[in-house]
């Protein structure tokens, strides 16, 4: 049993576990459905997710404790996550293996040479963490407010020292870096004492865009599974749709196919998690390395090196993914996982320049405030962005959303979709509701999305809270928005066609959609009577289409139009009408009088006090393309800016 075999088993296991978790993520009790499978576990052991959420929320939420275990293990053992656990990494490993299988050793050695572009992932890491850190920095700065000078200065000093230590770990030329950082920190703290920096420092969690676990969950859940299931319809009864999935799919396929060019392309060049683990593994107790300096320099150890860390020379510890291939490749048995550093030397710091560091840092910190200038998180809220039930108020939501797509996957009615750029670039791939797609609106009795979100961007609620029952009776149900009837498109309002599909399907009790009766004379509905008896009328000429008024919604009236006079039409031919026998005419309309044919319309109205924005009405509306009743996020429970009504006493605002 070589260690490489064990590594392959481990990779296969975690990849299989990941795929299994994706497959079972549908609501139900069968063994192949959700049950209690810990489908978020691979997201929870991801240290980048834990670190990102700690920076934006200053809380380590629940299951993310697993990530701390992973961090501890990485500190002790090195970057084994990439080589043994990460399912995305295993995928790259496999595709890369396919790509270089038949190539001679010489080519493989060239492919696995360290490429200076491998430093990009560190810049990406810094950028993403800086984007997340804005609000935490503001909190730190706020510490100096309202405290004496001594406290402020000591806080500044402590922070400066910590920053210096951090820099030392990163950059090869420490002195100038320290100087620059001290200046930056000093200016920042100084400014913070005078300006309201906490308002300028917006932060949000963008790591989900590039974090490998979030990315692979998103790609498999939203692209692979629906495409595969389109044929076999095993995972879902109908075709699942996801808006904008093309971009997610394209990125995924690009990342996968780039492995045919350079093995483990994503891991080496782009993966911010790999960068983080590489930095954390600096002091690992065991590391790969040569046991002896003199070797034949055959470079076979480089031929299958996954991390492009160059074990043949000065091994780069932060790039090594502990695949152990070098150890099994070396014919002399000179490469081993050992406590002492490699006999040919090792490099423990990433190869990034201080210039790049500062650029990444400043861009990251300023990215979010700049993105927020378009106002989409506040006053310029896009009307089509409706968040799922349980979403935190927008700032808190953006601080937590991983864009992992779990909520979109679990939603039984397929109405949660990744947002495009309509919610702003900052909200790319965050969940938003599209009621036109899927099997129904937001089911009243479903709490799946909140229960599955790994970072509580959609917080877990009980059914009582969602419906506003029992303990939550005074605060009322959770509202996603309000439905608005488009009177220009609604069939009864605009086209004299009876329809109350929305009212029939409204699930609240009492119904939020109510109707008002209206009788309208139909087009061409004023007709001259030729002959009539208690149950039939005959007209001059052939003015009618046979059966046109036989649906039960049409009435005819003579003279005064009141409820007492209208008779329901049960059938008609080209020139006759028959009314319902349950109420014949007392005195049939005389020859030469006019009869009006009227349609009984029930006009829908929405009561904003009761509407929860579940979207079932929008989904059922028979005006298929641009629905005649649409939900927009007005009056959603979580936002005061978008509230429509004054709250009742004690109610949630």
């Amino acid at each position, binding site marked *: 049993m070589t260690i490489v075999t064990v590594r392959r088993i481990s990779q296969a296991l975690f990849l299989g576990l990941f795929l299994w978790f994706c497959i079972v993520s549908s609501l139900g009790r069968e063994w192949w459905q959700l049950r209690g499978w810990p489908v978020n576990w691979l997201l929870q052991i991801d240290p980048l997710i834990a670190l990102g959420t700690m920076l934006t929320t200053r809380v*380590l*939420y*629940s299951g993310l*404790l697993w990530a701390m275990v992973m961090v*501890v293990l990485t500190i002790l053992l090195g970057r084994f996550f990439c080589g043994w656990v990460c399912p995305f990494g295993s995928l790259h490993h496999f595709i890369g293996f396919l790509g270089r299988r038949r190539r001679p050793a010489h080519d493989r050695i060239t492919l696995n040479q360290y490429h200076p572009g491998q430093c990009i992932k560190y810049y990406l890491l810094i950028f993403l963490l800086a984007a997340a850190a804005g609000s935490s920095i503001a909190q730190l700065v706020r510490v100096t407010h309202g405290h004496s000078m001594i406290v402020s200065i000591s806080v500044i000093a402590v922070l400066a020292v910590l920053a210096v230590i951090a820099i030392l770990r990163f950059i090869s030329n420490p002195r100038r870096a320290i100087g620059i950082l001290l200046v930056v920190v000093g200016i920042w703290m100084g400014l913070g004492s005078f300006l309201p920096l906490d308002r300028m420092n917006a932060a949000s969690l963008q790591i989900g865009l590039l974090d490998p676990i979030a990315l692979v969950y998103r790609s498999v859940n939203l692209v692979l599974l629906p495409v595969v299931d389109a044929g076999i319809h095993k995972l879902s009864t109908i075709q699942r749709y996801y808006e904008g999935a093309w971009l997610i799919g394209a990125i995924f396929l690009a990342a996968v196919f780039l492995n045919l060019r350079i093995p483990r392309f994503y891991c080496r060049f782009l993966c911010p998690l790999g960068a983080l683990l590489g930095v954390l593994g*600096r002091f690992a*107790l065991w590391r790969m390395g040569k046991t002896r300096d003199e070797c034949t320099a055959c470079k076979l150890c480089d031929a299958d090196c996954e991390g492009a860390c160059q074990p043949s020379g000065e091994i780069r510890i932060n790039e090594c993914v502990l695949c152990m291939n070098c150890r099994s490749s070396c014919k002399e048995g000179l490469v081993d996982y050992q406590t002492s550093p490699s006999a040919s030397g090792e490099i423990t710091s990433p190869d990034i320049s201080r210039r790049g560091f500062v650029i990444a840092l400043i861009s990251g910190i300023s990215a979010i405030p700049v993105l927020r200038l378009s106002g989409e998180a506040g006053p310029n809220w896009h009307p089509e962005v409706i968040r799922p039930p349980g979403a935190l108020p927008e700032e808190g939501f953006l601080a937590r959303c991983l864009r992992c797509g779990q909520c979109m996957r679990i939603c039984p009615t397929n109405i949660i979709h990744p947002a495009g750029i309509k919610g702003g670039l900052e909200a790319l791939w965050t969940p938003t509701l599209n009621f036109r797609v899927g099997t129904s609106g937001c089911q009243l009795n479903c709490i799946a999305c909140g229960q599955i979100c790994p970072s509580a961007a959609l917080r877990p609620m009980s059914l009582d809270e969602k419906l506003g029952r029992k303990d939550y009776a005074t605060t009322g149900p959770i509202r996603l928005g309000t439905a608005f009837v488009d009177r220009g498109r609604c069939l009864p309002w605009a086209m004299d066609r009876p329809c109350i599909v929305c009212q029939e399907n409204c699930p609240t009790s009492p119904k939020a959609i109510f109707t008002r009766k209206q009788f309208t004379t139909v087009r061409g509905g004023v007709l001259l009577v030729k002959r009539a008896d208690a149950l039939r009328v005959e007209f001059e000429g052939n003015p009618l289409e046979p059966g046109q008024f036989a649906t039960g919604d049409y009435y005819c009236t003579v003279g005064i139009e009141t409820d007492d006079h209208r008779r329901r039409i049960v059938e008609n031919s080209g020139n006759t009408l028959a009314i319902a026998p349950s109420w014949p005419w007392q005195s049939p309309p005389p020859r030469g009088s006019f009869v009006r044919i009227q349609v009984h319309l029930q006009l829908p109205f929405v009561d904003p006090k009761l509407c929860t924005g579940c979207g079932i009405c929008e989904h059922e509306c028979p005006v298929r393309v641009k629905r005649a009743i649409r939900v927009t996020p007005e009056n959603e429970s979580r936002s005061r800016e978008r509230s429509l*009504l004054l709250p009742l006493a004690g109610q*949630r*605002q």
Partner: protein
Amino acid sequence: MRRELRDESMNRREFLLRTAKAGAGVAATCFLAYWLYDGTPPGPLQEQDELVMLPDFSMPGLGPKMSIVTGGDRIQTVNRALKAIGGIEAFIKPGDRVLLKVNAAFATPPILSATTNPQLAAEVAHLCFKAGAASVVVTDNPINDPESCFNLTGIAEAARSVGARVFLPTEDSFEPTTVKDATLIRGWPLLYSPFVGINKVIGIAPVKDHHRSGASMTMKNWYGLLGGRRNIFHQDIHNAIKELAMMVTPTLVILDATTAMMTNGPTGGSLADLKRTNTMIASTDQVAADAFGATLLGKTVAQLPYISKAEASGVGTADYASLNPIRESTG
């Protein structure tokens, strides 16, 4: 041999050093996890900043006082009105920091009487300084742009001419407040920054008809302290005004009915909307002031439900006669 020994000892030392660093890293991780761990999911509402509440600015032990002075010159009538209820010295003591809440809601000229008369505001500020006030600040959260409102109404210039400071609200000037026993003003942004350090508040409001609430006088004047999308309160305007009166307990209010806006309020626009009622009211009870002001508009208390609601909430009394208002005339 010796080199191997040296390498070995160097390696061992290096290893121990590394182990120590790794151990420190592990310890830091564990500490961080322990410190920040929170197993409970976040609650439904945003983390609320601490709510602020305005303190009671009324003079203790003074009892309710009211004066009604008729006359055409605001400076004369306001001086007489204040003297009748004890003089400004009864209310403003040396070293006091005073806030004058004026109505600068619109960027309209003073002759339209849609806003507080600038000379009146300046005179009240001047009187406060005479009584020994350390500072006087004049403020409002206008409906239109603050700077143009305070300038075009003339209030900014008038205030500055007597040494008072004008506070123009910015986004940061607001803090959420909840009025005790209120149902509408809960966690609502209040113009709080100018109140920091203040211990006396005087409201100065013109008498106006109001399209939605029936009238806009001293109680509705506090609407100008609300921020956010406050127009939502128009859906329940009378309860909102009642809660505004519960929110602010001023030292005294001055109701300027020299030129009352009889119709087309609150913006007015034509001089024909105004009527020369030539009255100035000073009162420690804002409900009583409004109740009397209603008569000048030709309305009854019944037509202005917010007055009875405020009275029922204990803010004051609508029966202004019971305050034995001192009636004088400047001729």
